[in-house]
């Protein structure tokens, strides 16, 4: 469109040019024939309230990001080890404590010092088998082999939904457990914070949620640092501790009365059930093992090989840490206490009450928070995949302003905070819920891999099948054991929750399938002009600018004037007569139907009148489309909206879903210059 400017004269007399205004430029950009891409300004709010809300949102969440601003950074093995392993490695901070607690709660505290190391070695062997099994997943699914995708390909819908439910529970509990444990580490260093554990935990989850809503990326160096700081200080602690035990004969701090009492119970009193319980409690060390297999595409090429190598490195580090910490705990005769966690007590003994101890506690807490943050990346991504597959509400697959799956992040934040409140900020209270889902997940994933090798028969499939089959059988047995021994202490909840979640997801899918079937358009159909006639009905409350505008709009919709009519519902016939006289004078050709309503109802008589019109329609003709045109006055301010259009709103609510009925709102916006206009010709 020409900008209305005169031609601009050039340097030579005949050289004239015209600048053409490009009206779309601030908001859109042509990116192909008939294709526009919206700029940020196109979605900018236009009202003062909207701008204020957007500014407020910007302060908390940052400016909206475009799709192309998404980071596509590939991770080196070192960085990936730190980022993907934080969940698994951080579990070494509380797994030992859970083994010792299992013995103490069974009344055989002495066994904690003699058998915990054996239990931890058994768990390390299990970890090795699971890691070997997941190594196969990395190789077979270089596009990311989460349990959900592996089971979807190999077993179909139901098994994959069980895996998905277990994963969702696992991610939620990872946030709750890691945060609770991180807060316990902080409280171990600063005992004054003990009574504030729940508040601190919820605040931490709130901050992590906010950070993720801002589009916090886990790929940055900042996320790799805490893992290496923890690893460095933990290995130093183990090294120093082992040196003191072996060469200096250190047997730990002066035994407390509780330790002396516990040591009376010897390992001879320990039954198989207690051992299994200790094993099941310590098995939380395995949580997060699958993270690397899920994130294979994030690795630098060759992705599968690098991921497999990183997974093995992670397993070796975790096993060493876990056994090392358990060895120190048993050698130093450390028992869990309300004031200090086991790992904090070990650090306190090794480093003394020095900066080293406080730094170690800080690094442990940081790593645990990082582990919680890992779930904030995984949970919303899984929810988005489920939403794309139709098992979760669609809004879970939409990315927010900051390219984050905002709905999933908020749901995880809220549920994890509720779990922390329910657990009273205690890690131990949540552990029984934790490992059940993880082992169900392992089992489904490994069984899926067995089926994968049988069907693909890739080179070396027999060897790989054996590894996955062993992994599947073993994790299945452990899943049964973990569920049985922890059933009464909370595992029952997960056992109920998984089928409940599966049922909900199936129900959602059923709803979406039903809707898709209803809306399905056959591919071979060609749609010509509409053949259904149109009838326009305009409910009016008198003659005013808004009504006249609606009548003008209604007139433009029908070619046959007899198909247009206005309806006036009144309780006073005299008022109706006065209106009719004015109506016929000012709006000739538009029939006005007056409906007297002695019971003072407004909506009911209009809807019934439409029903009557439908019944009066010749039965041999196809029913017409009734367009109900509603005049609507647009309030100037947000606060005076409640003063207007209440009847129209009720009418709209009554008409939504009515067969062959279309509701058309005709908004009348009062502009400044209209105040002076009195001429109806000015109206559209």
């Amino acid at each position, binding site marked *: *469109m020409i900008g209305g400017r005169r031609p601009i004269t*050039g340097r030579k007399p005949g050289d004239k040019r015209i*600048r053409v205004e*490009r009206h779309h430029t601030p908001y859109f950009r042509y990116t192909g024939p*008939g294709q526009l891409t919206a700029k940020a300004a196109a979605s900018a709010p236009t009202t003062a309230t909207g701008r204020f809300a957007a500014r407020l949102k910007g302060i908390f969440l940052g400016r909206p990001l475009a799709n192309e601003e998404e980071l596509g950074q590939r991770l080196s093995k070192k960085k990936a080890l730190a980022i993907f392993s934080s969940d698994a490695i951080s579990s070494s901070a509380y797994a030992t404590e859970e083994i010792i607690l299992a013995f103490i709660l069974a009344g055989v505290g002495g066994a904690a010092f003699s058998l915990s190391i054996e239990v931890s070695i058994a768990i390390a062997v299990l970890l090795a088998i699971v890691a070997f099994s997941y190594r196969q997943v990395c190789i077979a699914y270089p596009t990311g082999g989460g349990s959900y995708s592996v089971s979807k390909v190999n077993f179909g819908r139901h098994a994959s939904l069980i895996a998905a439910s277990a994963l969702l529970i696992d991610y939620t509990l990872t946030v709750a457990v890691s945060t609770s444990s991180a807060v316990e580490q902080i409280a171990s260093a600063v005992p004054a914070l003990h009574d504030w554990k729940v508040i601190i935990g919820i605040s931490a989850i709130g901050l992590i949620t906010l950070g993720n809503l801002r589009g916090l990326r886990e790929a940055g160096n900042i996320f790799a640092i805490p893992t290496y700081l923890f690893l460095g200080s933990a290995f130093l602690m183990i090294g120093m501790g082992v040196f003191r035990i072996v060469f200096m004969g250190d047997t730990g701090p002066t035994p407390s009365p509780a330790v002396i009492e516990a040591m009376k119970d010897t390992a001879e009193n320990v039954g198989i059930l207690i051992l299994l319980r200790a094993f099941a409690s310590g098995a939380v060390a395995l949580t997060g093992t699958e993270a690397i297999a899920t994130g294979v595409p994030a690795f630098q090429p060759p992705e599968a090989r690098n991921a497999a190598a990183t997974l093995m490195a992670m397993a070796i580090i975790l096993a060493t840490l876990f056994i090392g910490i358990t060895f120190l705990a048993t050698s130093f005769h450390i028992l869990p206490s309300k004031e200090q966690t086991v790992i904090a007590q070990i650090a306190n003994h090794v480093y003394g009450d020095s900066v080293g101890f406080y730094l170690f506690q800080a690094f442990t807490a940081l790593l645990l928070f990082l582990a919680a943050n890992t779930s904030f990346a995984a949970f919303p991504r899984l929810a988005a995949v489920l939403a794309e597959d139709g098992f979760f509400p669609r809004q879970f697959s939409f990315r927010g302003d900051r390219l984050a799956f905002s709905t999933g992040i908020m749901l995880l934040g809220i549920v994890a905070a509720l779990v922390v409140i329910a657990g009273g900020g205690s890690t131990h209270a949540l552990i029984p819920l934790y490992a059940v889902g993880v082992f169900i997940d392992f089992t489904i994933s490994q069984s899926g891999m067995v089926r994968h090798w049988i069907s693909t028969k890739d080179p070396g499939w027999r060897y790989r099948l054996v590894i996955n089959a062993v992994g599947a059988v073993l994790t299945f047995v452990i899943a049964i054991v973990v569920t049985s021994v922890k059933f009464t202490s909370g595992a029952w909840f997960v056992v109920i929750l998984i089928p409940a979640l599966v049922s909900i997801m199936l129900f959602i899918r059923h709803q979406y399938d039903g809707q898709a079937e209803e809306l399905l358009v056959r591919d071979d159909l060609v749609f010509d002009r509409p053949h259904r006639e149109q009838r326009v009905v305009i409910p009016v409350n008198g003659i005013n600018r808004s009504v006249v505008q609606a009548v003008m709009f209604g007139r433009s919709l029908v070619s046959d004037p007899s198909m247009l009519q206005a309806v006036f519902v009144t309780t006073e016939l005299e008022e109706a007569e006065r209106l009719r006289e004015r109506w016929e004078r000012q709006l000739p050709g538009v029939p006005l139907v007056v409906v007297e309503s002695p019971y003072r109802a407004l909506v009911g008589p209009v809807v019934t009148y439409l029903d009557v019109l439908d019944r009066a329609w010749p039965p041999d003709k196809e029913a017409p489309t009734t367009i109900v045109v509603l005049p609507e006055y647009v309030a100037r301010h947000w606060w005076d909206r409640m003063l207007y259009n209440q009847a129209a709103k009720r009418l709209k609510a009554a008409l939504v879903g009515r067969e062959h009925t279309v509701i058309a709102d005709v908004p009348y916006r009062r502009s400044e210059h209209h105040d002076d206009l009195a001429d109806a010709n000015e109206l559209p």
Partner: protein
Amino acid sequence: MTIRPLPGGIVTRRDDPAGSVPVAQPSSLDWRLQTIVADSSAPQFRRAVVALSGGRTDRSIVALAADLARAGHAELVGVHVVEIDWTLPLDADVAGHDEGAQRVLDIAETTAEASRYQLETVLLQARDVGAAIVDEATERGADVIICGLPFRRRFGGDFTVGRTIPYVLKNAPCAVWVIREAMPEEQA
């Protein structure tokens, strides 16, 4: 006339103190871009008019201009001219409805953004493209006009200079850079 080598194999004909006319060597433009940016002696300007024809060279010259402009925080103006023949009045509503013309400028804007630089775009209607570009550059006080010269593959393949580039070279008061596209290997 002095010959001054520019980085990246561009040879400059410096025949007026106001600017230089680089004539690109037939090598890969991308390679040249990297070389120029890496060299601190890259030519600098305050305001450049980039003549956009809608051809293959548009993206390259915008990317080149953006990289060169960055050092001196120079202003970039992309100009596309829709030529109006004498059968229509000059102010006929042509370019406003021409999606193709809008797209030329939008693609240039996107290219500049990809190079993390801002490009102002101007759409003109004129009887003569060369005159409109020179006049626009003059009015804006540009110190360089950057044009692209694509290789025409049809009819045996050749560089067709046409009317616009000679006009700009002859009449522009500022420096003019003509960035010639590399010749296809089979033609070279």
